[in-house]
């Protein structure tokens, strides 16, 4: 950078000095620019001006505090939005909050009300809606158990990566012997198992890992005549996958990305169908 006849001939230097003052330059670049500024009165004055501006902004441009009424409004809106979303069966929408005046953003309630009325139309059949509600409840229970298991000390009752330790552990604790497969060679090591209570019965939960992610696989015997198709839900950052074999009902829950979770489910299904031919103990 040079200065000729008082006219700055290094375009872009302003942004550089700004970046310097903002602490955004690398140490090397900062040192170089500092050295230049000591030689260049133009740049030195520019820096002084910028420092003065910063002082003026600090003194004269306020950051605002959000009004208490707004805090209240937001809390109420969040609570209503959450309960509208979580409602298992369609019910009338809660009355929207009274708004101080109409605005474009107030229109937000309208799509939600529309969604609710569409839901009522869609779930026309009572039978269907009943089954839907049951599987909703099940998904909720699985998700709640998954989240509980992530709390300290809740993950496994039998922490072992050995399927031949985990499988016998369930003996005498359940009225069935869940299939246990170690998928470590495929990148999903078995971490252990635990007992849990879901859908009104004791179930086996097998815990698998993938990098820092955990996968809970819930297993219990399939009920005759209650076979249902695979199910796939994404909820609150977690992914739920459900499938059945003639013998067992499965749910998998994880925060793992959906692609890998699907891959995991496929591997598990494969191991299951292989295992039925040549059962490992």
């Amino acid at each position: 950078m040079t200065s000729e006849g008082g006219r700055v001939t290094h375009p872009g230097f302003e942004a550089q000095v700004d970046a310097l003052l903002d602490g955004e330059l690398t140490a090397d670049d900062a040192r170089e620019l500092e050295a230049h500024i000591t030689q260049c009165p133009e740049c030195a004055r520019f820096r002084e001006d910028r420092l003065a501006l910063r002082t003026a902004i600090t003194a004269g441009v306020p950051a605002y505090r959000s009004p208490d009424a707004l805090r209240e409004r937001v809390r109420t809106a969040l609570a209503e939005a959450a309960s509208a979303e979580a409602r298992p069966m369609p019910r009338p929408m809660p009355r929207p909050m009274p708004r101080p005046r109409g605005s474009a953003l107030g229109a937000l309630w309208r799509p939600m009300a529309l969604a609710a009325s569409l839901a009522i139309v869609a779930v026309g059949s009572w039978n269907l809606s009943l089954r839907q509600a049951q599987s909703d409840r099940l998904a909720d229970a699985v998700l709640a158990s998954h989240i509980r298991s992530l709390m300290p000390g809740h993950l496994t009752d039998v922490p072992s990566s050995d399927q031949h330790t985990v499988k016998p552990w369930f003996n005498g604790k359940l009225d069935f012997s869940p299939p246990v497969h170690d998928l470590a060679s495929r990148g999903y090591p078995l971490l252990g198992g635990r007992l849990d209570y879901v859908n009104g019965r004791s179930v086996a939960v097998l815990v698998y890992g993938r990098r820092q992610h955990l996968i809970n696989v819930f297993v219990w015997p399939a009920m005759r005549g209650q076979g249902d198709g695979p199910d796939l839900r994404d909820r609150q950052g977690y992914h739920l996958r459900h499938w059945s074999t003639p013998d067992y009902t499965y749910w998998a829950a994880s925060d793992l990305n959906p692609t890998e979770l699907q891959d995991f489910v496929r591997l598990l299904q494969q191991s299951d169908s292989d295992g039925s031919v040549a059962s490992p103990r």
Partner: protein
Amino acid sequence: MTSRAAVESIDRARFEALMLPHMDAAYTLARYWTRNEQDAEDVVQDAYLRAIRYFDGYRGESPASARAWLLTIVRNTAYTARKRGRVDAVTTEFDDTEHSLAAIDDQPDGVQVRHDAKETLGRALDRLAPEFREVIVLRELQGLSYKEIGEVTGVPVGTVMSRLSRARARLQEALRDK
């Protein structure tokens, strides 16, 4: 409490614990975007409702990343509201001829105002296009890094740098001319 309600309340509690502390930052950004208290409140409320819907996608870990994530949504909400034309849509790009200081001084409120530095600065900031105003607010009032500002405003860091520099030059001019 049903399991659904339990899950929902755990999740909402987490959302509120992470996001509500940044409401002042959200409101400040919205205030400077909309230049209007009521519109700012609407933007903030709408942004929080969007945020809880998108919370699944939030992967940050620090309070700073929660703030940047929330501010991104606030910014986009304000931007969309302006595009819809409901929020005061007067955007004033850098334009010396249209918006001289004299023209602003003749605004019709009829009150003779004393032009101290604070007021001059506030007016100059108001006259910036929101894309320039927001970088000043995010940097000077909220101390975001260039990278964070880039995330919030959806532009590359180089653009953040040049916008910030142009916006500052503009404010400095206003102070000098007063």
